[in-house]
């Protein structure tokens, strides 16, 4: 009788195993695909509403202490100033993206980040450009600061990007000074790391890392990050922490390039 309790669990294991095996062999299925775009739109709208509400609450106490007419004038001026500053910042970011567009022959599209992934093992974000804009799976995503990630799923109007600090992200990279070839990988946290670095490889603190292009995925020469710390040998390999140039928590616009 007790064993019957575990019957649903066994069925679950069989079902999910079959489901994932099927996808591993035939490619992913997306039963909620048509509504996902809608969900991202809602998510974006709610984020905007949250920002408005928190902005209002944050400013309420400040403005309540002043006379009404002064408050209105002040608020209008502040809004204008904030808008101007925001436009200036956006301008700067777009100029940097434009610079990328002009200098990279493999430029495909630029896009805005519209949602961030909440999945435990996936540091991802969604961008508002997809196959309609020419984006394909495995294309490289960069920010003005450096490598940001790669495209892992493409839909007509949006794409899912795996970020460089995701535990599943790995790229072939080169240390700029020593020209040593290394494997760069995400950790799930803010920093990244170099994998399989043996003690005979010379790694200097502060050394810059660029993509080597030898993995066949990422174009050569994209700035990735710098070496933050080199720990002593642990077993066969040394532990090398890397700080990525692209701050994945604050990216708003990115560019997609092909190899």
């Amino acid at each position, binding site marked *: 009788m007790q064993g019957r309790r575990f019957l649903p669990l066994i069925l*679950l294991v069989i079902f999910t195993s079959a489901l994932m095996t099927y996808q591993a062999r035939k490619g*992913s299925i997306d039963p909620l695909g048509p509504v996902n775009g809608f969900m991202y739109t809602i998510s974006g709208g709610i984020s905007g509403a949250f920002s408005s509400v928190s902005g209002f609450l944050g400013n309420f106490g400040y403005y309540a202490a002043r006379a009404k007419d002064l408050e209105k004038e002040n608020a209008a001026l502040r809004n204008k100033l904030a808008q101007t500053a925001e436009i200036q910042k956006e301008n700067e970011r777009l100029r940097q993206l434009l610079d990328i567009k002009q200098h990279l022959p493999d430029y495909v599209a630029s896009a805005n980040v519209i949602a961030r992934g909440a*999945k435990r*093992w996936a*540091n991802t974000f969604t961008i508002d450009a997809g196959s309609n804009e020419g984006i394909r799976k495995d294309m490289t995503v960069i920010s003005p600061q450096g490598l940001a990630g790669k495209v892992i799923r493409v839909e007509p109007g949006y794409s*899912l990007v795996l970020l460089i600090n995701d535990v599943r992200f*790995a790229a072939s990279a080169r240390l700029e000074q020593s020209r040593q070839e290394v494997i760069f990988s995400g*950790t799930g*946290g803010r920093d990244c790391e170099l994998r399989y670095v043996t003690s005979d490889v010379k790694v200097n603190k502060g050394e810059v890392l660029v993509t080597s292009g030898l993995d066949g995925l990422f174009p050569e020469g994209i700035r990735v990050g710098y070496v933050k710390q080199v720990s002593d040998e642990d077993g066969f390999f040394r532990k090398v922490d890397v700080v990525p140039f692209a701050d994945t928590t604050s990216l708003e616009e990115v560019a997609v390039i092909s190899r």
Partner: protein
Amino acid sequence: MKRPLLVSLSVFAAFLIDMKLSFFGFRTDLTSFVVYWFGFSHSYLGGMLFGAAVGGIEDSLLSVVIGSALFGKAVAGFFASFLSKGFFRWTPVLGFFGAMGLTFLAGLMELVSIIVFEKAPDVLSLGSLKLLVFQALLNGVLGFIIKPEIDEL
């Protein structure tokens, strides 16, 4: 009528917070806490189906292969119901260890699924274990504070 609304809002809020918040570069995993919280006050089948639904949505929205979060959260929901049966009685300490353990279990199951089916052996690293422990501890604290409503069975 109140309860389904509360559950739906909790799931939605958990997704939203998980999307927006990160501490020290680590993302939160409040959806696992909601699964524990729901599973605690329901039958093992109810807990499992709820966990599967939440995990399924998470997979569909944010993953390439559907099944890993579905599996992990369904397992967590299944075992959550056992914490309110038999000789277990809710105390803050049980809440802490229950939420922490089940969050860790859900993450571990998800991790194993990714390694096996998404062909990503590199996922198993110190970074991923740190993330698991952080999320489990955070949910453990919530489990200590928030008592599941078992009187509405």
